[in-house]
C-alpha cells in the first residue's frame, strides 16, 4: 500500500472523507517525509510545521463536526516563496528581501486557506523567479528527486521537487515564461499555468506583470483541477483578474478525447530537441489519436521570435517592478553616506547576478533612444505571436508540444551561459506572451529522466486542457511513477 505522503490529493480526500485517516496523520506523514528527504532535495526554504499542524487539527475538527469546507480540506500543500502567506517570510529567493514578513495573505493563499488547505512551508525558487533551474536562488540549489545531481528546473523548482519527493501533495508555483511547466516536466509531475488573469496576482511578488500567473503542481490533472477551482476567479485586489465565471473543472473530466482536435505546431519540434523527448511526445500524440482524437499539423510561424521578444518584455517589466527594492519600506539596507549612496549599495549588493543582468537589460531597452527599437518592436512582434495562436485555434481545440527541449540537466551545466539557459524556455514562453493556459503531464522517460507533454489551450479554456490531460492519465501510468529517494539517516 502506498505511503500517505505518496497519495494524490483526490485519493487523500477520499480517505479523509471515509474516516480512514485524519489530516493530522496525513500532515505528520508529509512532515516526516520532509524531515527524511529534504536534506537531499532541498525543496523548502522554510517549513511551517506549527501552522500546518494547527490547520490540520482544525480541518479534522471541521470534518468531525460535518463541516468539511471543500475538496482541499486537510490537504497539505507547499507555496512558492514569491507568494505571500501572512506571517511567514517571503524571501523570493533573494538576499535583498530575505527578512520580509508579509502582513497579509495573497489572494491565492487566502482562497486555499478558505478551502481548508494545510500549508507546509515556502519552496525554493530562482531569485525573483528569474531562472530555469533553481540554481539562481540566493540560498541554495534544489536537487531533482529523480537524480540528485541534476536540476529540478525552474523557477518553481522547489514546488515541483517537493511534489515529486512526496514532500507535499500539491503546491503553488508561478509561471512567467515556463516556470511551472518546465519544472513539472523535469520532475515528472503535473503542472498548470492558467490563462493570464485566471488567478489573482494580489500578494504575488511581481516579476513580469503582463506575463505572471500563479498555478498548481500535483501528481494528476484532476488534482490540478481541484486546486485551480479553489484559487481562480475575479478579485477586487487585482484589476487584471478576469471576471469570467469559474467552471467546476473536476465535473468536466469525462475521460473522453473522441473528436478532440489536437494541433501539433511544427515549430516546437526544434533543433536541439532531444530524441528521447521527441519520442515520448510523439508516443503520447499517437495514444490520443488511437483513442479518438484528431491530430492536425499546424504552424505558428513567429515562434522563433518569442525568445527575443520575451527577453525584452520580461526584463523591461522586471526592471520597473524591481525598482521598489530601495531598502526603505522593507528588505535589507546597506549603510552609506547619503540616500543615493545607500540606494545604489543596497541594490548593487542585494540582487544576485541574474537579477542584475535582467534589470540592466530591461533598463537599457526602456531607456531614452532605444524604446522604439526594442520595447515597442517587441510588443509589435508579440501581437504577431498572439495572432499565430488565434489562427491555430480557429482550426483546433488544443495544441500539443514538448515542454522543454531536454530532460533535467546537471547542476552547473548551464550557469555560465545566459542564452543557453534562456533556451530552456523556448517551448513555453510563447504561451505567456499570448496569455494562453498550458498544462504539462508526465508522458514518459528519456535516459531514466521524466519527460512532460505540454498541452496549450484557448484563453479561459482550462477545462478542455484538464479534460485532455486527465483522459491521457486514465490511459497511462507515468503520473504514478515515484522517484527512488532513500531517506537520510
Amino acid at each position, binding site marked *: 500500500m502506498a505511503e500517505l505522503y505518496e497519495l494524490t490529493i483526490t485519493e487523500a480526500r477520499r480517505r479523509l472523507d471515509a474516516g480512514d485517516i485524519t489530516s493530522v496523520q496525513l500532515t505528520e506523514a508529509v512532515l516526516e517525509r520532509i524531515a527524511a528527504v529534504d536534506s537531499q532535495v532541498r525543496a523548502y526554504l522554510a517549513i511551517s510545521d506549527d501552522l500546518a499542524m494547527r490547520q490540520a487539527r482544525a480541518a479534522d475538527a471541521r470534518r468531525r463536526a460535518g463541516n468539511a469546507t471543500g475538496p482541499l480540506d486537510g490537504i497539505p500543500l507547499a507555496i512558492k516563496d514569491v507568494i505571500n502567506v501572512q506571517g511567514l517570510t517571503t524571501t523570493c529567493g533573494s538576499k535583498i528581501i530575505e527578512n520580509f514578513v508579509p502582513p497579509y495573505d495573497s489572494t491565492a493563499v487566502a482562497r486555499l486557506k478558505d478551502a481548508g488547505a494545510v500549508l507546509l512551508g515556502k519552496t525554493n525558487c530562482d531569485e525573483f523567479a528569474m531562472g530555469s533551474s533553481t540554481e539562481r536562488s540566493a540560498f541554495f540549489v534544489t536537487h531533482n528527486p529523480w537524480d540528485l545531481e541534476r536540476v529540478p528546473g525552474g523557477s518553481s523548482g522547489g514546488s515541483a521537487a517537493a511534489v515529486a519527493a512526496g514532500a507535499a501533495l500539491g503546491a503553488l508555483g508561478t509561471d512567467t515564461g515556463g516556470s511551472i511547466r518546465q519544472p513539472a516536466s523535469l520532475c515528472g509531475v503535473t503542472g498548470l499555468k492558467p490563462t493570464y488573469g485566471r488567478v489573482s496576482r494580489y500578494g504575488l511578488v511581481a516579476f513580469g506583470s503582463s506575463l505572471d500567473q500563479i498555478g498548481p503542481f500535483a501528481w494528476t490533472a484532476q488534482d490540478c483541477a481541484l486546486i485551480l477551482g479553489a484559487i481562480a476567479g475575479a478579485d477586487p485586489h487585482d484589476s487584471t483578474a478576469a471576471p469570467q465565471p469559474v467552471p467546476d473543472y473536476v465535473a468536466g473530466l469525462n475521460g473522453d478525447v473522441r473528436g478532440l482536435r489536437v494541433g501539433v505546431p511544427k515549430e516546437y519540434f526544434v533543433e536541439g530537441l532531444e530524441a528521447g523527448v521527441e519520442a515520448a511526445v510523439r508516443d503520447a500524440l499517437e495514444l490520443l489519436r488511437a483513442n479518438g482524437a484528431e491530430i492536425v499539423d499546424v504552424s505558428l510561424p513567429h515562434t522563433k*521570435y518569442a525568445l*527575443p521578444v520575451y527577453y525584452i518584455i520580461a526584463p523591461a517589466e522586471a526592471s520597473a517592478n524591481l525598482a521598489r527594492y530601495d531598502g*526603505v519600506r522593507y528588505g535589507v539596507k546597506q549603510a552609506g553616506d547619503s540616500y543615493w549612496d545607500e540606494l*545604489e549599495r543596497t*541594490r548593487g549588493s542585494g540582487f544576485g547576478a541574474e537579477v542584475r543582468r535582467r534589470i540592466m537589460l530591461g533598463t537599457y531597452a526602456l531607456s531614452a533612444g532605444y524604446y522604439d527599437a526594442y520595447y515597442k518592436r517587441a510588443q509589435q512582434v508579440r501581437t504577431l505571436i*498572439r495572432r499565430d495562436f488565434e489562427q491555430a485555434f480557429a482550426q483546433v481545440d488544443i495544441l500539443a508540444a514538448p515542454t522543454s527541449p531536454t530532460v533535467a540537466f546537471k547542476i552547473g551545466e548551464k550557469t555560465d551561459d545566459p*542564452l543557453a539557459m534562456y533556451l530552456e524556455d523556448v517551448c513555453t514562453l510563447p504561451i505567456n506572451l499570448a496569455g494562453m493556459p498550458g498544462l504539462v503531464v508526465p508522458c514518459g522517460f528519456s535516459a531514466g529522466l521524466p519527460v512532460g507533454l505540454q498541452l496549450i489551450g484557448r484563453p479561459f479554456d482550462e477545462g478542455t486542457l484538464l479534460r485532455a490531460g486527465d483522459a491521457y492519465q486514465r490511459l497511462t501510468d507515468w503520473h504514478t511513477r515515484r522517484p527512488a529517494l532513500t531517506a537520510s539517516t
Partner: protein
Amino acid sequence: MALTIAEVEHVAHLARLRLSADELEKLQHELSHILDYIDMLKEVDVSSVAPTAQVTDLANVMRDDEVRPSLPREAVLANAPDQRDGMFRVKDIF
C-alpha cells in the same frame, strides 16, 4: 550590437545599481551578446502592427470610490529597516 563601458555605466546608474569594474565589463560582453541575439527582431515587418501591452482585453476596470479597511500602520512599518514617528526614515535626499 556592442555596448561601450560608458553605456553600461549609464544604464547601471539609471537602474541605481552600484557595480564593480569587473562586473561592468562582464555585463558589457553579456548584454552585447544578448542584444545581438535580440537583433533578429529587426527582420520582422511590423509596419502595420499594433503593439500588445497586455492580453486580457479588459479596460478601465472600475470600482466605487469608497473607504475600505487597510492594513494598520504598525503592520506596514514592521518591515522597514528604519522608521520614526510612524514614518519610513531615510537619509537627506538633497
